[in-house]
Every structure is written in C-alpha cells, then in structure tokens.
C-alpha cells in the first residue's frame, strides 16, 4: 500500500466523500468552462468575421459635432482638405495599402431610363436624377469590400481617373433597362437649373456628355433584416435605388460640381453669391475616406498616428472592429459578464474547495495520525491527499467538458436577444463601407465549440485550484502530532 494505492483506495472505498467532491467540481467546473467557452466563442466569431472583411478604417465627419458647430453659429467649419489627406499618407503610409473616397453629385437627365420604385418616387424638377458615385482608384472601395463585383468589362484606368474621362460603370439592371452593353457610347443631356422667386424652374445650362460604358457591376445584396428585405426604409427601397447609381471618376464629378457651382453662382450675381469657399472644397461631398490597411492588426497604430496628424476633432476614424463592437453589443456585454463570472468562480472555487477539503481533512484526523505514528512524512501525507483530490477533480472536469457545451448554449440562448438592440438602417449600411456586419449574420456564425487550448487551460485552472485549496486545507496537518491518536 504505497501512497498511490492508498489514494486510490480512499477514492474508491469512500464513495460519499468522493461523490461530494465530484459534484462540487462538476458544478464549479461547468460554470467556469461554460463562461470560458462563451468568452472564447465571442472572440472567435469576431476574429472570423473580421478576417473575412478587408482591414478598412473609415475617416468621416462626426455629424453630431457638426450639428453642434452649426448651432453655435461657427462660420468656418474645419473641413478636411487634400493637404490633410496627403499628410496622413506621408506619415502613416507604411500601414496603408490603398485609400479611396467617393465624391458625389446628381445628374438631371432624361437621356437614360431609371429603374423605378414601386411607390413611384420622383426627384427634382419632373426630370430624372441619377446619383453619381465617384471613385479615386481603380480598385475602389466597393470592389475592395466585395460589395460590388465587375461581371463584365473592366474598372477605370489610372489615366481615366486622372483625366476625369466620361467613362461609366453601372449595374447590370440599369444597363439592361437601357439596352446598353459594355463598349457602347451614349450621350447624356444634363440640365443645370434652379428656382426663381416664384418657385418656377429656370434652366441655366444644358450640357452634353458622351459617356462610354466600360463595366457592369453586380451589387451584393444587403443582409436581410427584420420583417421585409433589406432596403426598405419608410417605404423607400434603397437597395433598388442603388441600381441607378452611375459610377464615375472623382475627377469628372469634381469638374461637374465646379461647373454647376459657377453656373448657379453666376445666376445669383457673381462670385460669393450665397456660397462659401467651403462649398468649392470637393471633399465636402465625400461621405468618408476609406483606408485599406495592410493588416487588421495595425488598426490601433494607424488610427493613433493618423488622428495625431489630422488633429481635427470634427472627424473620427472608425474601424471594422469598432463596427463589430457596435453591432455585436449584446455579445460583447455577454462576454464581459461571463469573463467576470469565470474569474469570480475561479476565485470562489479556491475558497469553497478549501473549506470542503478542510472538513475532509478533519474527518481523517485519525488516519493521518496513524500515518504519522508509522513514521510517514507530512509532505507525503499531503501529497497523497492532493493526488486523491486532483484525481477526482480531473474526473469532474472531464465530465464538465461534456456538459458545459450544452450549458453554454443554454446560457447563450438566455442572455442573447434574437433581435439587435438597434438595427442599422439599410441606407446607412449601404453608405458606410463598414456597416456591412449585421446582427443576424453574427448570430449565425456564433457557435459554441470547444477547442483544445480552452480545454487544456480549463484543466490547468481546475488542477491548480484544487492543489491550492488542498494545500490550504492541509495546513491543519502541519501542526498535528501523532500522539493525539494515543488517547
């Protein structure tokens, strides 16, 4: 009967004691492991989702702050400038793979047929309006994010982008509606007009552009949202409206906007007629500047550096990670709570186990006295007790491994709402290059799975907890002497 045989005998022949310990470890282990599992699953889901998305950081205006400035009557709004963009590129270039931004304008023309909404919305002066979406680089943001895919033809060349050539990319639906194929040229007659004092339209200029269709895109549909499909917002289908977008070089839009501004300004009595200088800053039409980074691990470094260089409170950097955290708020808060639960359980396990094991040690006072009377070393007696409890603990932990997956999914179902707290409106989703993560798809990719590292970590945590608890409980033995069994 050496130490190990003694430990084994004690485990298998003193079943009630073994069962009590087993149940305690099972309960504590389940709480610990299931919270550990959930924490790790949230992290994994986040990583997996972020891995799929390109590492993009968006620089955009903080609209609340802008609103405040307007309310305070601040005249010179600190708009972002091309100089700012160059400075950022110079300082943080090593993090940037590419960056793109999209200037915007609207063209009033009846030369193309729009894809209409079912509700029959119309804009402007009874004439059709096409949203023009500009592009700075050949691999523009929508292509980079996979939000759009060129299915026929090609993207812009560097030269077309620099010169602002009248080349256009459109959706396959719009092309079909107008019987256009890649390579076709078509003329757009565009009108610049305004209202007079009697709210009557005054046509100021009519421009003719000979466009060439160079590419056809297909848009990825927005994630389906509550009730109806994605685009609906107040009865207006933004997803359908997107099909009417004309993709053009930024330079073209910039030139057109300048022309428009001059025409209107002339009408209102020359330069300065109601317009401020900032209205001529082409970047004011840009919703966001989108930086594609070399690696998603460099979000923080890039943002810190770029924000310092920019030094403008009105603009904020947002990364995919920020966006994930926003949308996945319920997951993040669940993760936070269970992270605490894990450490609290771990800490209280030591206390609970130490108390229980202390009771066990007291109960075995006589047996320990006998070992001492037979000349056994105290260290070896404590070792025997540790072997016993660790063995039972490992069995308990192994059982917890099988049951905690189930428990974790029960907890998740209980803690996670099936609907997002706040739904991102579809038009925002389309406008922001980042807001492509939706709650439903997060929930879909969230699943509780055990991995080896978690199990190993859990076993180490349990074993260390038991050893510490047993050592605390065994302090009693140290001041125990064999003579006590003689009476």
């Amino acid at each position: 009967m050496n130490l190990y045989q003694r430990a084994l005998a004690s485990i298998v022949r003193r079943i009630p004691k073994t069962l009590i310990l087993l149940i305690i470890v099972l309960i504590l282990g389940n709480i610990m492991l299931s919270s550990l599992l959930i924490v790790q699953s949230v992290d994994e889901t986040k990583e997996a989702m972020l891995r799929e998305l390109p590492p993009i950081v968006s620089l955009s205006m903080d609209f609340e702050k802008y609103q405040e400035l307007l309310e305070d009557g601040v005249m010179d709004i600190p708009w972002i400038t091309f100089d700012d963009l160059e400075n950022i590129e110079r300082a943080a270039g090593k993090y940037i793979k590419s960056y793109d931004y999209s200037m915007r304008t609207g063209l009033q023309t009846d030369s193309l047929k729009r894809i209409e909404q079912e509700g029959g919305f119309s804009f402007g002066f009874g004439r059709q309006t096409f949203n023009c979406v500009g592009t700075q680089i050949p691999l523009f943001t929508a292509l980079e994010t996979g939000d759009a895919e060129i299915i026929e033809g090609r993207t812009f060349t560097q030269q077309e982008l620099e010169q602002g050539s009248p080349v256009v990319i459109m959706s396959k639906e719009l092309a079909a509606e107008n019987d256009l194929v890649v390579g076709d040229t078509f003329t757009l007659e565009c009108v610049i007009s305004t209202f007079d004092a009697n709210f009557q339209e005054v046509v100021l200029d009519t421009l003719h552009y000979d466009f060439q269709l160079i590419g056809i895109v297909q848009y990825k549909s927005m994630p389906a949202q509550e009730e109806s499909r994605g685009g609906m917002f107040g009865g207006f289908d933004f997803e359908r409206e997107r099909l009417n977008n004309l993709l053009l070089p930024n330079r073209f839009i910039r030139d057109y906007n300048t022309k428009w501004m001059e025409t209107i300004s002339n009408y209102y009595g020359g330069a300065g007629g109601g317009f401020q200088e900032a209205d001529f800053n082409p970047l004011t039409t840009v919703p966001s500047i989108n930086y594609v980074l070399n690696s998603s691990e460099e979000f923080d470094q890039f943002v810190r550096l770029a924000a310092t260089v920019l030094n403008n409170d009105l603009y904020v950097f947002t990364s995919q990670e920020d966006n994930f955290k926003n949308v996945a708020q319920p997951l993040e808060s669940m993760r936070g709570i269970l992270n605490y639960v894990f450490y609290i359980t771990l800490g209280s396990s030591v206390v609970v186990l130490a108390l229980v094991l202390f009771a066990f040690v007291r109960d075995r006072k006589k047996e320990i006295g006998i070992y001492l009377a037979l000349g056994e070393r105290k260290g070896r007696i404590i070792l025997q007790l540790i072997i016993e409890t660790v063995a039972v603990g490992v069995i308990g932990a192994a059982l917890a491994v099988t049951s905690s997956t189930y428990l974790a999914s029960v907890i998740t179902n209980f803690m996670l709402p099936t609907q997002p707290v706040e739904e991102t409106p579809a038009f925002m989703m389309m406008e922001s290059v980042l807001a492509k993560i939706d709650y439903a798809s997060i929930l879909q990719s969230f699943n509780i799975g055990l991995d080896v590292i978690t199990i190993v970590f859990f076993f180490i945590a349990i074993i260390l907890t038991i050893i510490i608890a047993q050592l605390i409980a065994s302090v009693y033995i140290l001041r125990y002497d064999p003579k006590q069994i003689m009476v």
Partner: protein
Amino acid sequence: MAILTVKNLSHHYQDGDMRRYVLKDINVSFDLGKFYAILGQSGSGKTTFLSLLGAMDTIQEGSIEIAGTSYAEYDANAIRRNLIGMVFQSYNLIDYMTAVENVLVAMSITERELPQDRKTVAYNLLDYLGITRTKADRLVTRLSGGEQQRVAIARALATNVDIILADEPTGNVDESTETEIIEIFKMLAHKHNKCVVVVTHSQVVANEADVILTLRKGGLTQNE
C-alpha cells in the same frame, strides 16, 4: 545489552502558569529478548512515558538512547518508521483498508530492507498471529476487537524492528483474548528476541512479564 536506555528523563505539562511534572528523573534500560510490563494507575504518566519511548513526543529533559545513539540525533519520524513498532489500546487501524493492506501500509513507509514479496510476508505474519487468509482480506472494521489487535501487532512487526511498544493493548478485549495477546508478546520476546514494553494497569498482564516496573508519583521503580 540494553537496546533502550533512558537517562534522567523528566516530562511536564503546562498547567496555566505552572509546570506539572508527570515524569521525574527516570533512569531505566530495556534489553532485547525480554518482556517488560509498566504498571501504574490511570493518570500516572504511562502513556506519556511510552510516547516518549516511541518518539511520538518531544523529549524535554534527559535523554533516550537506542542502541547507544540518542534520539536527539534522529528525526523522530525516522525512529518511528525504522526502529520501533507501536501497538495502541484503540488499535488505530485504517478503517477503509483490509487487514493485509494495513500491514502493507507500514511496510511501504519504512526504509528498512524488506523481503521482495511483501504481500506473502504480510499474509504469513497475519497467519502466524492467528488471522487466516480470508480474514486478512476483510476490511478491518469487520474483524473482532481481538483480531484487530492482532492485525495491529502484525503491522508493528511487519517492518522487522527490534522494539515493540504497546499502550494498554488488552484494554479493549475480553479476558481470554487478553491471555492470547499476552502469549504473543511473550513469544515475540522469548522466541524472536524482541524488546517488548507493554504499558498496563492490569496485574494479570504484569504477572506474565519478565520485568515489572511501576510508575508512581513521577518515578519508576522496579519490582523485585
């Protein structure tokens, strides 16, 4: 030749601010091959004396030598596992183990050279002391008091030590069992050349001993 020599041994317990001496300046020696009985009334210090002999308590004044070497030079634990076998009034067996397992526990703790086949030795020893093979494989809680005490004696002998110390070993058994156990101790001393020291308050036990010592008022006297 004396195997155990007690020199000027005194022992006291703290009674509030006062030291109360239980043993006072004891000088005695024990030889191999003899059966000693230490008589004394309850509370006279028998257990205290035996626990000092058995290295279960720390010596305060005086000394005890085993084969010429002072206890002070040994680790108390080592004396217990390698040099002495103890038998108690309340048997002190481990209740969730069988008789043979209890014997094997002692054999696994000692550092003495033991025969390879310990299990056989343990069974034979138990058999020699009247515990059959079937009983040897029973949990000790399912043996009678006398049988349990035989198991306890077997455990003390299993490490093949020269000295057996017993504290009122027949205190919990009936008269016929008492006689049988005393016979065992006599045999161990006379046939196996052990030094057997039995503490008792029973005159019957004392009458069988080679040497009777009486503990009274802290002093130990030999009856002639």
